[in-house]
């Protein structure tokens, strides 16, 4: 039995990370082989685990008491079931390929060793997240991947761009994490457990239900919104492209951003109890998919096109989960991981050759970089949803689920399928076909070394075949392997499939007509759609909106705080001061009558009161003392009146 040793899959990258960190510099290649060897072993172990579960082994779970708080015991542990096994294979495989690829891409980098150590650490964190059998350990992994992501986006921290982007990513996702954490606490307080099966059982038993359950589920989802870059927290992902491209491929396309989808899938038992929460998931997913796809159609930076595409596809997965297509969502996660990693690594290969990310400086590269170009085109076909590539099968399943759920969501997702095909066609044509637009860069372009093209080819093969397990061709094997509740095969609806294919082909056609031929004058088209163009070109002004609202919000908060300070606090101090001044007045009056007579008494009292009044401003120790006493005296009076 392999399953009890599943923890090794996560432990090996951790050991590798430490080894690289401490001893990496002693080796010629910065210790990169340590990381690669460890992840290779992890990958093999993952395959064994996957094989056993596919062969019908029982899921495995190991728990131990982590905290013992006087009667309340907090359990911790790992679980390996079918969903975990799929994720393990995806994460270790993509990590391994990215690590191999990075040998070429990051060659000669100033912090090569640190890069490898962090990459291994990320893999460890992600695997911890996947292996967790409870919300608490998942949250640990969740924060650790966030930390690794922060470190890797900011890898080139000398430049302000990456430094700012890493901060932005960290802060933005943290907003969602706060919600997730509160959600976890609510679930713990109501169901008394952190473990996924226990929490789900608690939900099923009605320990938490109704509005509170919906709130808890939406709070948990808010964590996913941050991590998976869903609307309205999607703004960090495009900026995260400042990081090294292999990092984008691993973290910001295949694994970490999918953690949000995984979270929803993993805690589906919570969502299943609240149709409202699932509706929120579905609609947020739809909105995200549409918005991101629209922005992607005008992005000029190759990596940003892919980033918005990732956001859009993550929205797709959320739609799948939200509309009840549990299998479809997870399936799309799997296939997307392969072809999107492929696209990112392909773009990395281009960037490596040209030292630019602007598509307007590319063009005609298919002749210079055939392997990169053709694997990229395969990835595009998979993403666009052309049969029989992987993306077609998973996208089709999501569309099918949406079709049964709500016609508007269905219509919008088909529209996104069209947009996806369109912007990817545009990207391919601008990058690889047509005439080179920057001849100097074109002359220097060359195909990447074998340790970069190798992973591309492997991923390209997966982009072709990874869809078959979920297709009717293999009898919906994936659906039998991963399902929520009882497995029931959904009958294929031919019209849905036809619409999916039609939308994809139409998108490709439109993209080809606009960018591949001279039939449309693009300048005129831009001029004709000026407002829309500007709106999309500025990424729908989300950054501006946030900058404005956050800054504005801070100012409002500061104003409120200032107001409270000025009116309430000062008011109290002044009132107290007035009281003291009155006492002073009376006593002063006695003083004056006794000593000086009452001649200029009134005037003295008034000016004395004014003088005293000023004293109650902050900075004077006696105003502090007066507040002190006033509180005691007022407190005692209230206390006695209430009847202590």
């Amino acid at each position, binding site marked *: 039995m392999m399953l009890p040793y599943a923890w090794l899959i996560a432990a090996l990258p951790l050991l590798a990370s430490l080894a690289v960190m401490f001893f990496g510099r002693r080796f010629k290649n910065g210790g990169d082989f340590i990381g690669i060897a460890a992840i290779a072993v992890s990958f093999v172990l993952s395959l064994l685990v996957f094989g056993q579960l596919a062969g019908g082994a029982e899921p495995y779970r190991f728990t131990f008491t*982590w*905290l*013992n*708080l*006087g009667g309340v015991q907090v359990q911790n542990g790992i679980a390996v079931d079918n969903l975990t096994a799929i994720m393990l294979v995806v994460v270790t495989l993509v990590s391994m390929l990215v690590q191999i690829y990075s040998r070429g891409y990051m060659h000669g980098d100033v912090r090569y060793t640190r890069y490898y150590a962090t990459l291994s650490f990320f893999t460890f964190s992600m695997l911890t997240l996947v292996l967790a059998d409870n919300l608490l350990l998942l*949250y*640990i992994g969740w*924060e650790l991947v966030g930390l690794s992501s922060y470190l890797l986006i900011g890898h080139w921290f000398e430049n302000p761009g990456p*430094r*700012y982007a890493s*901060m932005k990513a960290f*802060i933005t996702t943290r907003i969602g994490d*706060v919600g997730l*954490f*509160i959600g976890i*606490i609510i679930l713990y*307080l109501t169901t008394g457990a952190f473990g996924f099966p226990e929490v789900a059982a608690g939900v099923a038993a009605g320990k938490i239900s109704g509005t509170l359950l919906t709130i808890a589920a939406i709070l948990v989802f808010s964590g996913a919104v941050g991590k998976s870059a869903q609307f309205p927290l999607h703004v960090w992902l495009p900026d995260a492209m400042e990081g090294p491209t292999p990092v984008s491929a691993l973290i910001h396309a295949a694994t970490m951003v999918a953690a949000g989808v995984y979270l929803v899938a993993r805690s589906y038992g919570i969502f299943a109890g609240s149709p409202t929460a699932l509706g929120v998931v579905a609609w947020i997913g739809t909105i995200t998919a549409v918005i991101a796809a629209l922005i992607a159609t005008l992005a000029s930076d190759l990596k940003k096109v892919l980033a918005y595409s990732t956001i859009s596809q993550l929205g797709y997965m959320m739609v799948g989960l939200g509309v009840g297509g549990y299998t479809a969502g997870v399936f799309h996660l799997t296939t997307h991981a392969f072809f999107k990693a492929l696209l990112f690594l392909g773009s990395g290969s281009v960037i490596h050759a040209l030292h630019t990310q602007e598509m307007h400086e590319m063009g005609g590269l298919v002749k210079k970089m055939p392997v990169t170009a053709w694997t990229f085109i395969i990835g595009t076909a998979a993403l666009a949803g052309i049969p029989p590539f992987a993306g077609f099968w998973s996208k089709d399943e999501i569309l099918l689920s949406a079709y049964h759920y709500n016609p508007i969501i269905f219509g919008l997702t088909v529209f996104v399928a069209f947009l996806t095909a369109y912007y990817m066609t545009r990207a391919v044509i601008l990058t690889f076909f047509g005439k080179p637009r920057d001849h100097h860069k074109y002359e220097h372009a060359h195909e990447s070394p074998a340790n970069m093209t190798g992973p591309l080819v492997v991923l390209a093969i997966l982009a072709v075949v990874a869809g078959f397990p979920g297709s009717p061709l293999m009898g919906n094997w994936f659906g039998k392997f991963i399902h929520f509740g009882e497995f029931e095969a959904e009958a294929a609806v031919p019209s849905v499939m036809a619409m999916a294919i039609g939308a994809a082909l139409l998108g490709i056609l439109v993209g080809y007509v606009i960018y591949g031929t001279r039939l449309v004058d693009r300048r005129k088209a831009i001029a004709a759609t000026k407002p829309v163009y500007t709106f999309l070109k500025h990424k729908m002004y989300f950054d501006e909106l946030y900058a404005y609202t956050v800054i504005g919000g*801070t100012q409002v*908060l*500061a104003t409120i*705080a*200032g107001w*409270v*300070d000025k009116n309430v606090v000062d008011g109290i101090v002044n009132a107290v001061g007035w009281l003291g001044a009155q006492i002073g007045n009376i006593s002063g009056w006695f003083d004056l009558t006794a000593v000086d007579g009452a001649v200029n008494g009134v005037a003295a009292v008034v000016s004395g009161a004014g003088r005293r009044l000023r004293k109650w401003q*902050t*900075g004077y*120790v006696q*105003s*502090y*003392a007066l*507040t*002190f*006493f006033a*509180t*005691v005296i007022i*407190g*005692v009076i209230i*206390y*006695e009146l209430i009847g*202590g």
Partner: protein
Amino acid sequence: MDYLYILPELIIVAVALVLLVGAALSPKDRQGYMPVVATAGFLAALVAVYPALGQETNIFGRMITVDGFAQFFKVIFLIVGVLVTLSSAGYMSKQKTSGGEYYVLLMFAVTGMIFMASSTDLLAIWLGLELVSISSYILAGYRREDPKSNEAAIKYFLMGAIASAVLLFGLSLVYGYTGTTNLVDIAQIETKALAGPAVLGVAMFMLVAGFGFKVAMVPFHMWAPDAYEGAPTPVTAFFSIGPKAAGLAAMIRIFPVGLSALTSKWSLLFAIIAAVTMTVGNLTALSQKNIKRMMAYSSIAQVGYITIGLAVATAASVNAIMFYIMAYVFINAGLFSMIILLDERGIGQKIEDYAGLSQRAPVAAAAMVVFFIALIGIPFTSGFFAKFFIFAAAVQSGFMWLAIILAVNSAISVGYYYGVVKAMYLDAPKDASPVKVPRALGAVLLTGALATLALGVFSEPFIRLIGLASLLR
């Protein structure tokens, strides 16, 4: 022999007296040995705690008690002594004033703190409090040539003396109504006998005000920001952890244990104070520009969180307070070691002076981030469990509203801590030269960071320890 049980205290006082003579005899530039001797004294006292561990008895005519609670705080306070001494050495050696008396006063203050936590008699608790206070007044004004330091001292002294008088008046009323100053005897008086007289209400308010002053609960906190800002920075570090922890320990002895018959009376009072203290502390901290003043409000907010534990007053909440204090001591000691360093190097006390620290001292900046994360209460730092236990205790006892205010405040606090992190990591430094961290400060920084992380991950043994030391069962 009763004296064996107070061996740690005796050691500290003896070392302090030796240092006092030493300070008089050796010239200013030959006083480098003083922090070493003081540290050795604290460490020797720590060792001397060991024989009494696990014992329970009363000594000196039931004035002092030996129990797990007392031992727990004794160890915490001695660690505070070590950390503050190590943080102070570099700073004090650069002052014009001779450094000798500084360590002496620090040791006296720690002794007072220990007595506050290990007395079950109101008289002895008050004596401990005065020992801490009088030493603190002098410490606050230790930079005699600095008008701000003078001002901090005189403000702290005047407020402290008034607060002390109020506290004593309250104590005299308690004595009048119960005929004893011993908390164990007071606890045994029946509920009805205590609950009647209205004057006890007055007494209770005066006790809350007196101790609330010491630990800086709103609205008895107003001295704190001024004293923190004006005092020499190592003294600020000490103020933010030592006297506070001692005051809270004494409050646990007095309220949930001694005056448990009156729980219904003071519980709501503490709940209101907790809510106000958290909110005022955090909101005011938002607009601070001086990091010492910001940390003053931050520590006021932290006391607000802890006060929830007093309001709830169950075994779980008292344990939560103990965990909170343990976590907080390491966080603040570590954080202040950097504030001390930057002040000592003349870099400054303003938040803007922290610009680009991530490039000038990367490890130290990272450690500071850990401390801020812990102060906010983000998981896998000690601060998380500290807040979580308080939160859980409040929810279990039906103080849901307090728990919600805690969560909201925790979110607000991100605002000002982030300001410092932003300065350290995103702003460009005016002067990019590296800041070298001296060994003693580095040790404090590292101890603090490691303890913060360790308590956040392997908290179980410490929770069990606190369970053993708990006063309430």
